[in-house]
């Protein structure tokens, strides 16, 4: 039996963080909204069992990550076609830093985007990130370090990346 009230409480307490996470891993507002809504719809379908899960929010993040990776692959061909046809006019960005970061993240591998989002948006320690992404701690450190290095190369104004990298070394 699914309890709508507990699902609604879960949704209200996690939706904002989940949209942030979705935005950070997809690099697109509309994609993020779509993926996160899809993830919550799947959560609701299984809510009878998922509500007893020890970490339903982590479950949700995993669904969002997988959907994002899946879509990223499928959209790659479409993006190539769009580039040939000319990109649609950009929407006025409300936040310059956010737009710059998102543009740079689009050129960062999916695994790196994911661990960076968990670190910077969820403030997770490396060990916890490693458990969530099911990868060794050393690999996560490497992904974080390489992700930051890539962002530093793409964002020339980014400050003291080397110093930041030491906090997970």
């Amino acid at each position: 039996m699914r309890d709508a009230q507990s699902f609604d409480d879960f949704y209200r307490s996690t939706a904002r963080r989940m949209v942030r996470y979705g935005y950070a891993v997809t690099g697109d507002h509309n994609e993020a909204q779509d993926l996160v809504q899809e993830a919550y719809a799947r959560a609701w379908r299984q809510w009878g069992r998922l509500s007893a899960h020890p970490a339903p929010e982590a479950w949700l993040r995993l669904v969002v990550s997988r959907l994002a990776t899946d879509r990223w692959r499928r959209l790659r061909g479409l993006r190539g076609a769009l580039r040939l046809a000319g990109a649609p006019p950009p929407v006025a960005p409300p936040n310059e830093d956010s737009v710059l970061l998102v543009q740079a993240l689009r050129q960062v591998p999916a695994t790196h985007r994911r661990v960076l989002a968990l670190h910077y948006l969820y403030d997770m320690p490396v060990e916890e990130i490693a458990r969530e992404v099911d990868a060794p701690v050393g690999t996560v450190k490497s992904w974080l370090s390489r992700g930051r290095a890539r962002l530093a190369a793409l964002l020339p104004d980014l400050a003291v990346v080397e110093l930041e990298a030491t906090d997970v070394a």
Partner: protein
Amino acid sequence: MSRELSEMYQSLAADADARDLGVPDLLRQQADRRARLRAAGSTVAVALVVVGVVIGTQVVGPPPVTVPSPAGTPTPPPVSPSPSVTGGSPSPPVSPTTPGRSPGTTATSPGVTGSPQPRTPTSIPDRAFFRLAAANQIGIAPEFRDLDVLPGLCGATFPSEAAIVQRRARNVVYKLPQNPGEGYVPDGTYTHSITIYRAGRADDLLDELRQAVRDCPQQERSGGSAPVLGRQRLLADSGYGDESVLFEMRSPGQDINGDPTGVQDVRLIRAIRVGDVVTILWEQGWENTSSQRAQVDADSARAAAAVKVWLG
């Protein structure tokens, strides 16, 4: 000016916070509706397979014999929830502890609130237009164009057009969930439009549309080789937006050469009002396919939900 990466992520978070995800009860309704549609689709598919097997057996097989079902069919054991994106996968190896949070993010910070009144917008962003469900996507991107948003109805005009603030329309190509996707023939197309009306005028369009359909029970339209007689009628409708109008257009089907196919060509058109906004889905088929009510219902729900999320 130099920036810290953590500050840039905070900017990204603030940017994401500006986007409303919608209310949970609406999401639950959509999820349940989709689950029902899937179940119905699966039932139809299974029924078709069974019918096909039975017919095939009668045509080429030996005389049918009754085989009793095996007794005590085991029930599959319950499985733990596992996110399935491209099929089954193991549960995430997650820590039972609550993940840490960034400064300024609290567990009580709701991304959504109750059911606010839709505001009257002045322009229509792309995000106001619904996305097809993954099972309906065929790899053809919707195309925004200057399109007629409604079929002709005995030359009816709509005085509410004078109250339009902005209108955008696009062509959406889709497939039915049970059919293969990219590289295969689509199952239908929509002309999908969103129109903003001046405050309090959107319901005029729905009234005018109802009257136009009533006043035009039949009309001739050009066919492949000769005019065909089409019939229009209103269908009972509820549950979409603040109010909605659904009507069908039927006409004798014709093949690509204009010869009669012997079946009716059915088109469904639904106009949904949400506040001062009206979104219209006009299903136009693909190479003589008829509109499928369940599919139009599902996409209507998505269209209305996208408008609601946009309006906040």
